[in-house]
């Protein structure tokens, strides 16, 4: 399955906290796709656990890599755009 990669920026003033982490995981679960997120240069984590997402300790202004395994690139791109939305706080 091809992988779509892009980066998102944490804009929420309190960083990647419980609420956006929960929203992202909920979205990923509903999509049924495998999505990985993390800081660039580090091993990405599966975005199926809010605790794991919070453990990235991403602060306001930090960039995160997102990878989505999906045959339809348009779906993957839309999903990443939605994740960016959640990170706006």
């Amino acid at each position, binding site marked *: 399955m091809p992988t779509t990669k892009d980066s998102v920026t944490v804009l929420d003033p309190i960083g990647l*906290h*419980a609420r956006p982490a929960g929203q992202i*995981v909920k979205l990923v679960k509903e999509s049924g796709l495998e999505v990985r997120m993390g800081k660039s240069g580090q091993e990405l984590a599966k975005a*199926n*656990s809010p*605790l*794991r997402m919070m*453990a990235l300790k991403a602060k306001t202004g930090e960039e995160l890599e997102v990878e989505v395994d999906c045959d339809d690139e348009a779906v993957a791109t839309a999903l990443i755009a939605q994740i960016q939305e959640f990170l706006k706080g």
Partner: protein
Amino acid sequence: MLDSGTILTGMGVGLSSVAAEVFRVKPAASLPGPAKHSGDEALETENLKTAIATVSAEMNALAEKAGETSAEIFEALIMLLEDEELFETASSQINEGWNAGTAFINAVEEYAELFAGDETFEERLNDIRDLARRVAASIAGISLGLDIPTTGRFVIVGDDFSPADTAQFTKAVVGVVTIQGGPTSHTAIICRSKSIPAVVCCQQAKDIVDGMQILVDPVGDRVVIDGKESDITEAISFIAKSHDPIIPVRANIGSLEDAIAASASAADGVGLFRTELLYLSATTQPTKQAQAENYAEILKAAPAGPIVVRTIDAGSDKPVPFLDMGHEENPALGVRGYRLIEKHRDFIVDQLESLEIAREQSGREVWVMAPMIATYSEAIEFAMLARKVGKFKVGIMVETPSIVYQINELAGALDFISVGTNDLSQYLFAADRMNPALGAMLNPWQPALLRALEQIAAVSQTAGISSGVCGESASDPAFAVVLAGMGFHSVSSSRSQVGVVRQALSSVTMEQAKEVFEAALTGIDADHAKSAALAALVAISAK
């Protein structure tokens, strides 16, 4: 045993007060300690799944009861509770032999370690730990319900309350007192949103028992045993009666951002420019040119008026990477502030020379002062050094008790002094600022500190030295009035407080400020001093 009339100090939440009977929440039945299971991993895993589902359903029910403010909090909590990775981690704990309840608590603790030290997550961590306790309790068949009465009027007193606890608050809850937790705890947030009068972080509340009558008085930051309506501290609204405050209100800054923000406030210059920030992250000593550029930029951006610059205030607990500080047993009593001159004279001279270049470039009025001056000789040495380097007004910080007794001898040598009340308290009371257990001694309303400040203001006046206060206490509007009443010539507040401090100092005359100070002096302890001063302020504002 708490006698009638006893005052317990905490932090108030809200502006209204309430007097009612106490309902003391019992410490929850203790959970069974960590234990291994008998060998049936599948059964334990199943037990854990059931317990998570049960607690999740409880949370859902509580979310409905709690209403809108908390619904989002519960939704987030439920997601964390049902976290797949958390379950995986707990499962591997079961495989290691731990029973379901222990395994889940251990799994949460594994994540807790990841979050430790991160302020954003620490409060959330308490919520997650509370969930883990609930899961373990469900497995052990223990009820964690609070059993709060549904009728009558009660002040609920307990350690601290989690979201699941506050959701059980009934209509009978008219006030809340917690022993722990701070102004940003979940309890405080909920009480604020529901307008329930509360006092949090009230350690002596541990001795409050069922059936007592107490007054919850958030404005006075206190709880009064058997308190009546007449004991309620009135919220003071400072109404400016003149355009200008009775003494100038300056701002505390530490960076260019601060300087820009402060100039948007009504601050009359800068009363404390902390220079450490410019050095604490540098690995090598910045060149004089780089320092001068930095300073010039900040001086230009600072609010109109004089700018009081404090030379570097570093020590082994606040080390500057490029200065060799070594290790000390007691950093607060060690080689810090101006004492660095012994080993690092060049650096301090460099700093003053850079400031002089910046002063010329910016055309601003710059005052310089040295921190941690303890003797006459140190003060004179610094004054001579600073005057040789530049056209500054020269002064010292007064934060050690020893220098208080030599201010009169510094007449003619110094232009000004500035009191750092936080450190002065620490050294006056021999109470470590970093130790939260000693907070009560560091309360600026302590009568001994008030008298020390009074003495400093008086002796500076006699010596013809301008005096100011730049410690934390000068950010408290009521305390700022007391400082003006003592005879200080200026105060410097954190920039978010400049507006309210200015307003307080514009709402009284100098005569009235003196009355407020005299009233504060009648208190035999910090609480009485503060309430006497507040009462005097209320009487003035009623005129």
